[in-house]
């Protein structure tokens, strides 16, 4: 089997044996923490790109809403799949695909953690992995 290639590899890092981390950003001028990362200028205070720095965000947070999607014409995932908003412990709200294909067993407030999950295949047939969030069963 070919080596797994990450979908959107610029957005996260895999810490061996641990929870993947997200590559966010931080504004030195106003303290605003954001995801996804960008280097155009601070949305909150307008500070110039020099004031923006990368910030590693722990892939842990709480589920604030979720929805099972039944209508999707894109590639890479079959319906139904479930997406959610996870408010990271460091503040930013992140929208991500959830590990669970349907919402059964999910409830708002659930503790969630990032995982690397199979994410289909690329055009060359290589297996892909992508960052998703899963319910944290044992770390309440």
């Amino acid at each position, binding site marked *: 089997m070919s080596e797994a290639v990450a979908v*959107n590899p*610029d*957005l996260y890092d895999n810490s061996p044996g641990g929870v993947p981390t997200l590559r966010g950003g931080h504004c030195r001028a106003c303290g*605003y923490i954001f*995801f*996804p*990362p*960008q280097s*155009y200028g601070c*949305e*909150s205070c307008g500070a110039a790109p020099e004031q923006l720095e990368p910030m590693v965000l722990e892939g842990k947070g709480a589920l*604030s*809403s*979720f*929805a*099972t*999607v*039944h*209508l*999707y014409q*894109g590639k890479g*995932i079959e319906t139904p*799949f479930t*997406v*959610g*908003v996870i408010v990271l412990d460091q503040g930013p709200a*992140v*929208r*991500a*695909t959830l590990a669970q294909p349907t*919402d059964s067993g999910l409830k*708002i407030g659930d503790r969630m953690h990032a995982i690397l999950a199979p994410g289909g295949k690329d055009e060359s047939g290589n297996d892909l992995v*992508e*960052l998703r969030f899963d319910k944290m069963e044992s770390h309440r």
Partner: protein
Amino acid sequence: MKKTLRQMRPVYVVGIGLHKYQRLSETPYVTLGLTAVREAIADAGIEWRNVDSAYTGTALIGMAASRPMLRHLGATGIAMAQVENASASGSTAFRQACLDVASGISDVSLAIGVDKPGPVASAPAKTNIRDLVGRRIVPFTHFALLANEYMNRYGVTAEQVAAVAVKNNRNGANNPYAQRQKAVTLAEVMDGPPISGSLTRLQCCPVGEGAAAVIVASDDAIDKLKINRSRAIQTIASVSRSERVYRGAKNHDAELTRETVAQAYEEAAIAPKDLDLIELHDAFTIEELLYVEAMGLCGEGEGAKMIASGAVDIGGKCAISASGGLLAMGHPIGPTGAGQVAEIARQLRGEAGVRQQPNARIGMAHMVGVGAVCVVHILQKRS
């Protein structure tokens, strides 16, 4: 010093016209647009040569839409331009027409919204900022997520959210310009194909084609062109805002509407209780619940109760989406905001027939566009 619309010279809606909203057809956009403009000119009782400027609200047709359409009314040489502001394109075209007349640059101006579904060149996709979900979260899922959070927070059921579609389709059934002209039961809404989260097909607006035209004029023009003053409806507030960073807010969409509408109330010197009707951005059922609260019509979490009470039905305290709203009248993008203004003007004139909200004097048009932007107008019947 900055001025509000009301601090400039008065501006009135004097002509309205529409082409029915419908599924994509072979009809050229030119035909759609001209149908609406000709109806609006006839409604105003003026001639095309009396119009000083034209703003075309469109997001999907492509570059340079105005003159290839409007030249067929006689190429008078007037100022014309396209206005693209996502779903609020028609609202923004109307705002530009109002500002043109209020400032004194024009005596008569046209806002024409026209669109046909097609491939969209979306600028947000070209920012090189990528997220984790891409097209897996499109607007219907964005609002499904907000619905999930809202229902959980306030103990509201999926049926209570779906009831918005029942009300607005009931209104749309009586609107000959509506894309969906069929009353539906709650069971029909709930049992329809699931789209995302609790949202079913009839809880998502149809995006088709159509056109809506609004002609605005000054007092001078009303006198000079002998326009029927008793049918003129004044625009008393025009507010356009964009989303800020609402740190800690649970719902950015509601916050944007809250602050845009608050500014409109202040400019118009009215309170929510003064509103007789609202055309509201109900692209998805949940939005009506979120926005009636953000507009101050009821308290937080009380939207479902308010809708169940009949207070926002035609004949209630404040009719919401008497036209059928985006859910039933449809959301052809460019026309939608202009069509809202046309419905409010028709209602305030007392010409809405079976959809008439009794004794309507003040109405508000509210659109939200991807980005996010929010555009609000308040219109008033003159005493």
